[in-house]
């Protein structure tokens, strides 16, 4: 069975927020929209977004790591948000595992958001229904689009291609390979929600330099007489012993 998901590579995410606004831009006037904004030009502006990029500092100066951390609905394989929904507005699609909200059924009771440990759902203040990432379901199957465009807006936008999209149940898919080979992990595994979205950790490249690499025979200083041979009259072993 298919389970579509995002795999987010923290190793290359620079926190640029492209995925945040491109998501908003696509979805606000798409079938998941509108995503209203309150006080857009006033104090404490606020609005509905399906995707947020956060920043964490790990460790203490000077060994600090700054981690940019994008988060949207993780399309859990066992989504706790679904069974609690009293109306059936929240559902998980059999065919591709996408967790969706049917706005026409949603009564805005917010219960599903309480049941999501990840804070991935947002009640739209204007429409008063629960909203969340749809995995751009209105893009990925839209045959009027060129194939290259049939992926989520955030994935298309991401300048570092930190966002991979695909079927995590297909072991050959790029996302599955990435999870397998780059240490992909799930968030808050303690809850057994089995998020379909995965994260790839930071990886470090180091260079090892051997002492002898700094003193090579072809050292250019020799050409310019800067690594001189010792003078002939300096003492040597020859001066003190015989064998």
């Amino acid at each position, binding site marked *: 069975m298919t389970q579509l998901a995002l795999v987010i590579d923290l190793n290359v995410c620079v926190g640029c927020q492209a995925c945040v606004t491109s998501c908003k*831009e696509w979805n606000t006037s798409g079938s998941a929209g509108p995503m209203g904004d309150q006080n857009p030009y006033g104090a404490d502006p606020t609005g509905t977004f399906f995707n947020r990029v956060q920043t964490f500092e790990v460790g203490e100066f000077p060994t600090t790591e700054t981690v940019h951390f994008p988060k949207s609905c993780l399309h859990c394989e066992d989504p706790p948000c679904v069974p609690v929904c009293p109306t059936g507005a929240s559902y998980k699609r059999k065919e591709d595992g996408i967790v969706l909200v049917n706005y026409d059924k949603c009564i805005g009771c917010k219960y599903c958001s309480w049941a999501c440990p990840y804070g991935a759902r947002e009640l739209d203040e204007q429409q008063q229904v629960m909203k969340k990432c749809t995995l751009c379901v209105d893009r990925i199957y839209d045959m009027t689009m060129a194939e290259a465009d049939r992926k989520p807006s955030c994935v298309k936008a991401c300048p570092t291609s930190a966002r991979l999209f695909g079927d995590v149940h297909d072991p050959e898919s790029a996302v599955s390979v990435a999870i397998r080979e780059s240490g992909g992990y799930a968030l808050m595994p303690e809850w057994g929600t089995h998020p379909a979205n995965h994260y790839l950790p930071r990886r470090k490249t180091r260079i090892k330099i051997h002492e002898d690499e700094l003193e090579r025979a072809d050292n250019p200083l020799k050409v310019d007489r800067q690594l001189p041979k010792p003078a002939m009259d300096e003492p040597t072993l020859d001066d003190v012993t015989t064998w």
Partner: protein
Amino acid sequence: MQAATASLPPVQEVKNTTCYMCACRCGIRVHLRDGVVRYIDGNPDHPLNKGVICAKGSSGIMKQYSPARLLKPLKRKAGAERGAGEFEEIEWDEAFATLAERLGKIRATDPKKFALFTGRDQMQALTGMFARQFGTPNYAAHGGFCSVNMAAGMIYTIGGSFWEFGGPDLDRAKLFVMIGTAEDHHSNPMKIALSKFKRDGGRFISINPVRTGYSAIADEWVPIRPGTDGALLLAIIHEIIATGLYDRDFLVQYSNAGQLINADETNDEFGFFVRTEVPTEEACYEPQDKLWWDRTTDRPVVTHKPGADPYLLGEFKLSDGTPVKPAFQLLQERVKDYTPDWASQITGIPADVIRRLAHEMGVTARDQKIELPIAWTDSWGNEHDTVTGNPVAFHAMRGLAAHSNGFQTIRAMAILMSLLGTIDRPGGFRHKAPFPRPIPPCARTPNDPRAVQPNRPLDGMALGWPSDPDDLFVNDDGSPVRIDKAFSWEYPLSVHGLMHNAITNAWRGDPYRIDTLLIFMANMAWNSTMNAVEVRKMLNDKDESGEYKIPFLVVCDAFHSEMTAFADLILPDTTYLERHDVMSMLDRPISEFDGPVDSVRIPVVPVSGDCKPFQEVLIELGTRLKLPAFVTKEGARKFRDYPDFVVNWESEPGSGIGFLAGWRGKGGEKSLRGEPNPNQWEMYKKNNCVFHYELPKSYQYMRNWNKGYLEWSQRNRITRYAEPILIHIYSEVLQRFRSAAQGKGLTRKPPEHLKKRIDTYFDPLPFYYDTLEALATDKQKYPLAAVTQRPMAMYHSWDSQNAWLRQIHTHNYLFVNALTARQQGIDDGDWIWVESQWGKVKCMARHSEAVEPGTVWTWNAIGKAAGAWNLTPDANESQKGFLLNHLISEELPEAGRRISNSDPITGQAAWYDVRVRIYKVGAGETAITSPQFETMKPYPGMKTRSAILAFLGVKPK
């Protein structure tokens, strides 16, 4: 959503153009429904961004439909005070008539009295040409307050530069060292390259006092104290030379490292290269008349003599007894005392880290060489079967540039890059057309005040590249001709002008008063001015007669910016989605490593309200003023409009050089040069709005010395000469100024009070000095360095009107190392005062572990004046957000005079030199930022802001 797969009616139209939510200029596809912009994504066929887009680009809709847009020409109400924001709507006819009359009079009397300054725009080709045609020397764009140190420091060294002129080849690099860069103009391309680089296993080191953004994903973060990179780089050079990790062959062939310099201090020629003959013609290239000391014959020979191999180190005597030394010897002497231990004290970086950095660079460059099977011929006729690369790449921007010691620091970096043999080679630094150019490039300003004449175009360029004191644009007494004092003895190599001093100078009447100041796309009453509090007063200040000290202020802006409040006349510009634009080879095109690329914008939506593209304004004004470029001999209009101008204008009749390089020639069959093509716009439109000329592989590398490339470039009139461009390890240009300051030679001499300054800073070899501000500051009292960074999701001051982006950065904090903060008793989130010797601001502190303890920083230009950008007066931007600029002075005291707070060589604004102290606000002080300014009102003609926003046109169910 309704049913899961239900989709709205298909988008009706997709139009391609070029983004301008920032200066990166990615290709975008604008999706429209019922004529309304619905979605903007990256154009996959665009060479720059290859389909990706950034946070700003994706929020273009909110710019297009922003309530902060100016929609009517406005003039200050009769009787209203300037700055009070009292405007009345006028028609364009009146605006043009007013301008034509006023400017006509100025032009007929003293064209200097008109000054045109433009901000982060991309049409310097047109604005510069307009100013020149008008006849004023007082023209500049943002370069002087932006990163001129980067341009000048590198171009005066390697003939090309980071910025839009070149960059790191991360495709092939193995080690990448990024210094002082937060976001930069190469926004999306850098991100694309960086992630690819990391995924390919490259090692990424970031040298920066702060770890955010790109630095976050670095394999190693090297926190450094601001303003001290010069020390670090010189120490690395020290270590590289001491261990012999430099690319000797590269230096010998392609730089002036082996050239002999007169070492006789008593001689007038001291410090100059010894030459075989006196150059006959004054041409813009370096004749190959210098000497090497040949190892095999142990005699001086003309450089590049076949078979010769010079000593790089040593001391020699010419036959006439003159002592001479190779440039490299002088460099070695220079860095002798710049040891890693010395640098460690200054930079705060452990000495063994500095050594390791040097070793990593040197060993990677030497041992991981790339050989590409590309045959090429060098300038001396030697054929090469391969192109070699030493895969160590650097990138640096304003973290180096925006310091008053930046020029010499950047020279040190360029020299380091050269020592490693990484110039225009795979995996190193790569040029982008129209670079490389001769050192220095050939454009010159006039050097004589008589170049400014009534009713005549300026006799020369307003901006240029001085090569010796005689190139300075000064009066006979050595005083500056330009209002910003660029190209004067105060900042001789100020190749991009000093916009940041224009207002102060004009206000003070030093060097003189002007009449009309036209500001285009620059928010100079706010974020692009230092000392914003005082500068705002200057803009309103009157003289004894009651006349404004700057009598007439015209602002062309698209939005309700802080600057517009001070205008006497406001010209409402269009947005980037509404106009034609060109990213021209005559300005800063979007060229790639593999060849020239230029691009255009084509309107995708109709013009809003009564907006008018500034280009059209200039063409109309030029026509009305009968500037020669815009009218026929008989004085009749030459160009219908801007698109017509772009197609038909030629630099000279028949030159074949115009704004666009693509599809020239009658049928579009020619590239780079050719007759005007009436269908040129159509052809750009069909080609994703870009023209990409891919050079043959053999012309893509080693272009400073690549015979084929240089001749190609000459044939296509990109350059005048095809002489090789040798790297200036040793800068004779600087020596010429120093020598003049020492009273030697035949050139002009600096005025007495500037002699010492020139003598000190115009050192032909890089050296480290503490920033001018630090020298003028009690560091005990102001122990911290304060800097800003660009947030990736905001462009300068533009985006607070953007409903989506402002939710990401609504106000800003001062980030303080947690330890430093705790020592001051400052808790996370506390309100604090940040105080420099020039001013103080109140703001909130945020603890951070990702900042060097002696540095505090904040996001740039998030703070706003109350009411500006049509935000409500209580918006966070003006209540909690703050501008660091209030703490930065545009001038420093120097020997009893005021001198710009800038690099003494280039006039680069020294934004990042400021020193501060921080302390908690007193009990009872309000939790609101300070200083506060009078609330700006919305202007007539602007849309009202809505309290809620669903999507435009689509009503919530």
